[in-house]
């Protein structure tokens, strides 16, 4: 599986880990990864550590996630390498996400 989801024990934090190429092929898988956690969580963490490539379709998928998930939930895009961080910053994703 290219996407794994973990819910922490105190149930306030959900982690979504994407592996490999984050592109249009994950469109449905990515959506179903967060669809059970739309409300009631403090943080959703999208872990980019194992993402090798990210295209504009993936940016679109993240935006769509931001729209679906409650605005009380902070979405954190974590562990991006410099290539991915650069893509995120060019599109000013820091305005909608916490980028760490």
């Amino acid at each position, binding site marked *: 599986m290219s996407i794994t989801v973990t819910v922490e024990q105190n149930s306030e934090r959900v982690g979504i880990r994407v592996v490999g190429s984050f592109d*249009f092929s994950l*469109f449905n898988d990515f959506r179903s990864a967060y669809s059970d956690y739309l409300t009631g969580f403090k943080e959703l963490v999208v872990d980019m550590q194992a993402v090798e490539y990210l295209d*504009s*379709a993936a*940016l*679109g*998928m993240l*935006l*769509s996630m931001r*729209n679906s998930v409650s605005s009380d939930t902070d979405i954190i895009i974590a562990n991006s390498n410099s290539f991915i961080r650069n893509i995120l910053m*060019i*599109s*000013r*994703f820091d*305005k*909608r996400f916490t980028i760490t």
Partner: protein
Amino acid sequence: MKLLVVDSEEIYRDIISTCVESRGLQTKTAASMDEALALYNEWEPDLITLEVLSPSGDGIKLIKQLKDVAQDRIIPIMVITFKSDDATMNACIKAGADDFLAKPFNDILFNTRLSTHLRNVMFSKETFQKNRDLIYFQSMIEREHRMAHQVLAHAMDRSEDHDEKVAVTRLAATTFNGDIALIKRREDGALLLFVGDFTGHGLPASIGALPLTQAFFKAASDNTSVAQLANHFNSILIDILPDYMFCAAYIMLLKPNDCLEFWGGGMPHAFIIGQDYIDMEGIHSKHMPLGILSRDEFEDTTTEVNLCSGSRVVIASDGVLEMCNDEGVMLGDEQFKSILASPDNCISIDSFQSALIEQLLSYQGKAEQLDDITLLSINT
């Protein structure tokens, strides 16, 4: 699943039919070679058992005939025969048979081997169907990409690509990647430019291009400001694009006094080429792309850069910087900078552009161009 039993002896036709009765297979039997061929063509079985000994003809020849008709479909043939010497087995397998059992056979062993063959048949049927689906979808997507190119070509018809100060080059790949470039000189002499890159590929990526194009030419004739145009474009795209699509863009206005005003969202930095420097900081995106932020949140602040006389601006789409050479190495900023620095700065914008394209193509070599490429150069 359909099993064809070919045997001249009625008793064996019955035994084999009985053996598979509980497995839910449809069974038909053939007593002669001719009957077998006829049933094979008409009824299209998935699996065959065959006795090569037959008074009605050569069993090995029949195996060859059946395999020829099957072509690339997998229809296993299990030879079940009294003539179980090594030479016969070898001849059968060579002719294309998939399995060989000697009579009298053990029904448990027969069923086990039958299961294996059925599994293979199922698998091959699925693969066959998936291949057909893939070919269907592939041809549909190719058609859509051609359509998208056409839609875009139509939209950009009115763009003035042959201005003395601007050169635009588009190198189309088979996949349409959503690049768009529009240019129009306004009545006040200022040059209005739009370079955009829609998310995704193919027809969906071209949807937003039509309304933007219309709005662009209207804005050029109305002398709309860059900020107003950015707001307007964002409004259009917010309404028509789904939330996972957007358009990275530069909207630029080059005024007659060589002051360049721009709004940029989600685009890579542009290159300002002076006499002895290449600047990659002066023109870069400060905003989220178009079609993401609501009308209330949208930021329309623009930036002004005063370009020195004789300098040039080059805007390259992702496709340029991500262009790969024969060894699969991406071009990248630094390599592109060295290409930009090489042509003589005094030459006309068209010659400059041709020199760039020539060098890009020579970098690319024989490697396949995956994305559309848009390159726009502006002279002061």
